[in-house]
């Protein structure tokens, strides 16, 4: 069951469309004048650079759209808020929105011209709907005010990633969270005790994965060894996304209608490529051989979890949290001997690769009106310190040294004895997120690998280390669309995605024979696949002509 997907997404699309049309009339006054806010220096520091603690020269207040998490709802007396004020002289006024419908309300507020100054929890790509309205600040014009941000981008080599954010005007409108290295969370979890009993090694490639499933099935005939979940939004969305990397394509959650073909030097329609077909054939064989449960593409998460924890299946898609929260407790109740672990990210024909897109995390948009505010420069400095300085990132994740955590001489952080977080201090009376507001997700994103791993379990660190030396796939070169092209693409995109999703599942489940693949490709082309890549290629050529 997906309780929110359909109405929420439909509503979101409608609101975003309205936001475009309505604010296009009133907004846009700052677009042409990128330097308008630079003189608004109330409260700003004169010499603010890398390593400096930002402290406003006079008390300031900034409003912030805040996604309220059901597990740790915001409290006004959180140490997070008071400590921010203590350190920076800035009071943050959160506008609370339930996490369940955050995106819809964000669209509404921006569309109505009523958005807070800082708009948190914005994933790269989500800002595109608002760009043409002029309601969102082109932050790329102002990054010179953000020394920590610029330093991290340069130090971690993120220029190419950042270029992906640029719109047709060459500017970008979202400040993303930055990771030092790509971070792959989703993979496949397997019953390691079952593998050990059968004398099997943990598979390291997709071919080995299939062999392992075959061996498990031989020992346990009549059951599907792999029954998958995460079909919310896209059938087997996580598995297809993960598997596509090894096959050199994109699918599932990560599906994109256009893929950059380096040899041809142009974008091609993803689902028409041989790589995509190879992926579909691989998954088709898994299902045809009875290794993968056909219900993987339709069942809800709970059903898949129950099959896994009751021992009917031995493999399932997973992220770090699902292993700890969904699988281990259920398995423990049914079979105390059972063990489960995420397997190292399987390699494929395309090698052992990860997607560097994961170096960009959700970040924030800024209301365009902010540039006219007298404290604009101070606000950018504040954002720079809180989101991008080492001190700021450690602070929003771990809290206050001596109160919520302690730091050893070698840099190892440990939670204070009376504070719990992700089960690190079970039984402690206070909770880092619930009682203090840290590690909350609205500001606590990105940072060094050391910081990211600092709250991981040993099992998760082992998984991350196992993929640390993987190669990165090449990022597609920038091809920012102009307003008209965005409209054209939007018209085709959903139809095409639906056709691809439907065709993919039909081929996988054997409802459509693979001999009809050419007809499938022709059908996609008639539904706009060719037009789609033509538009993207046109945008690419224009970008190259204008920017080199």
């Amino acid at each position, binding site marked *: 069951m997906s309780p929110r997907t359909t109405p929420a997404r439909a509503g979101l699309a409608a609101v975003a469309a309205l936001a475009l049309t309505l604010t296009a009339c009133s907004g846009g006054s700052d677009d042409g004048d990128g330097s308008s806010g630079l003189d608004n220096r109330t409260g700003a520091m004169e010499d603010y650079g890398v390593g400096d603690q930002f402290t406003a020269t006079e008390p300031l207040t900034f409003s912030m759209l805040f996604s309220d998490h059901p597990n740790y709802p915001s409290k006004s007396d959180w140490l997070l808020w008071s400590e921010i004020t203590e350190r920076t002289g800035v009071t943050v006024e959160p506008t609370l929105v339930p996490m369940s419908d955050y995106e819809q*309300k964000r669209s509404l507020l921006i*569309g109505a011209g*009523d958005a807070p100054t800082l708009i948190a929890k914005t994933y790269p790509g989500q800002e595109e709907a608002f760009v043409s309205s002029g309601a969102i600040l082109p932050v790329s014009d102002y990054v010179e005010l953000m020394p920590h941000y610029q330093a991290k981008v340069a130090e971690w080599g993120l220029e190419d990633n950042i270029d992906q954010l640029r719109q047709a005007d060459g500017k970008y409108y979202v400040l993303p969270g930055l990771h030092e290295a790509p971070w792959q969370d989703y993979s496949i979890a397997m019953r390691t005790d079952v593998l050990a009993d059968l004398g099997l090694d943990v598979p390291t490639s997709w071919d080995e994965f299939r062999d392992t499933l075959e061996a498990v099935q031989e020992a346990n005939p009549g059951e599907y060894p792999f029954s998958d979940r995460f079909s919310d939004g896209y059938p087997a969305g996580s598995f297809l996304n993960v598997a596509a990397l090894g096959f050199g394509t994109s699918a599932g959650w990560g599906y994109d209608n256009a893929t950059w073909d380096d040899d041809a030097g142009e974008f091609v329609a993803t689902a028409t490529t041989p790589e995509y077909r190879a992926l579909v054939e691989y998954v088709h064989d898994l299902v045809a051989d009875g290794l993968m449960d056909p219900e993987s593409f339709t069942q809800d998460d709970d059903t898949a979890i129950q099959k896994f924890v009751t021992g009917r299946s031995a493999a399932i898609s997973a992220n770090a949290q699902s292993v700890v*929260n969904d699988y281990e407790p259920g398995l423990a109740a049914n079979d105390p001997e059972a063990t489960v672990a995420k397997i190292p990210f399987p390699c494929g024909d395309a090698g052992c690769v990860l997607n560097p897109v994961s170096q960009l995390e959700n970040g924030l948009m800024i209301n365009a009106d902010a540039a006219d505010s007298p404290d604009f420069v101070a606000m950018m400095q504040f954002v720079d310190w809180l989101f991008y300085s080492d001190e700021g990132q450690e602070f929003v994740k771990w809290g206050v040294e001596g109160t919520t955590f302690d730091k050893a001489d070698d840099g190892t952080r440990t939670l204070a004895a009376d504070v719990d977080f992700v089960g690190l201090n079970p039984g402690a009376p206070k909770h880092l997120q619930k009682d203090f507001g840290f590690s909350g*997700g609205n500001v606590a994103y990105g940072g060094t690998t050391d910081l990211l791993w600092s709250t991981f379990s040993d099992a998760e660190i082992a998984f991350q280390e196992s993929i640390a030396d993987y190669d990165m796939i090449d990022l597609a070169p920038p091809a920012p669309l102009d307003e008209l092209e965005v409209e054209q693409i939007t018209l085709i995109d959903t139809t095409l995605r639906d056709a691809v999703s439907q065709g993919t599942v039909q081929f996988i489940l054997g409802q459509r024979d693979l001999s009809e693949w050419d007809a499938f490709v022709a059908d996609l082309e008639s539904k706009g696949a060719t037009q789609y890549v033509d538009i993207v290629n046109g945008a690419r050529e224009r970008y190259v002509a204008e920017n080199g």
Partner: protein
Amino acid sequence: MTVEKPRPAAPVTSRTGTLLQDSRGYQVFRVANVVVLLGVVAVTLYPFLMIIARSFSSDTAIRSGQVNLLPVGFNLTTYELVMSDAMFWTNYKNTVIYTVVATAIAIVLTTCYAYVISKHHLRGRTVLIGIAVFTMFFNGGLIPNYVLITSLGLKNTLWAIVLPNAISVFNLLVMKSFFENLPRDLEEAAQIDGLGTYRILWKIVIPLSKAVLATMVLFYAVSFWNSWFAAFLYMDRSELFPVTVYLRNLIAGSSSAQSTGAAVADVAQVSANIQSVTMVLTVLPILCVYPFVQRYFVSGVMLGSVKG
């Protein structure tokens, strides 16, 4: 009318109350009817019973798929946990206040409007009906509504929830139809006795309209109790949310983040038993209202629907 009690072996009393033997076809129909309706009852009750069973079960038992209709790992600690959350009660209190105030205002406004447009001699009556019906087909849309409510200064107040939804056109038309069917003679007699329009409404019409009023109270109360969208739009502070927003965040929040492949901190892992307990506590009061209003309910809707 007295019905003669049949002896055990005697023929079953027919639907007309006589001692005639029901036809075989009718007997078969009754059996099939009972079976089908029992099936419907089972299908309708099953989710409720399962939620109740889950609310008393341990989270591990739910996650491992052991809970069906009876609790496994019976405990009350989840109830204690949910009920000890101050925000839950704050939101709960808000729901009660919003529902009571909104229902009261909605009943007064709907009754007045319906009474007026039920009078055929009123000039401009069709315009008044037209205005109401127009809103069934067209509305300003989300953003204009939001801008309106905000400009009126209603944001973050009770009135943002109460006023925009004060008149449901469907309920209005049901009530209008009901008032049209009241005997005109009664009102004319009252008029001759010297009563004005308002006192006729208050002294004659309202006392005769208990059935439809009870139905309307039920309709409005249930819809205000269940509503979350207005509060979600117009409230910026969690202490102003009704419990439905609290509940929605608890349930919908847990699946939304995962579907986008979001990072660990986003993924709400609200225990299944906490979700169940919150659901039970949220539907319980409005469920309790039904039996008290039900006897008016059927007659109220029927009265309004038939025009004689």
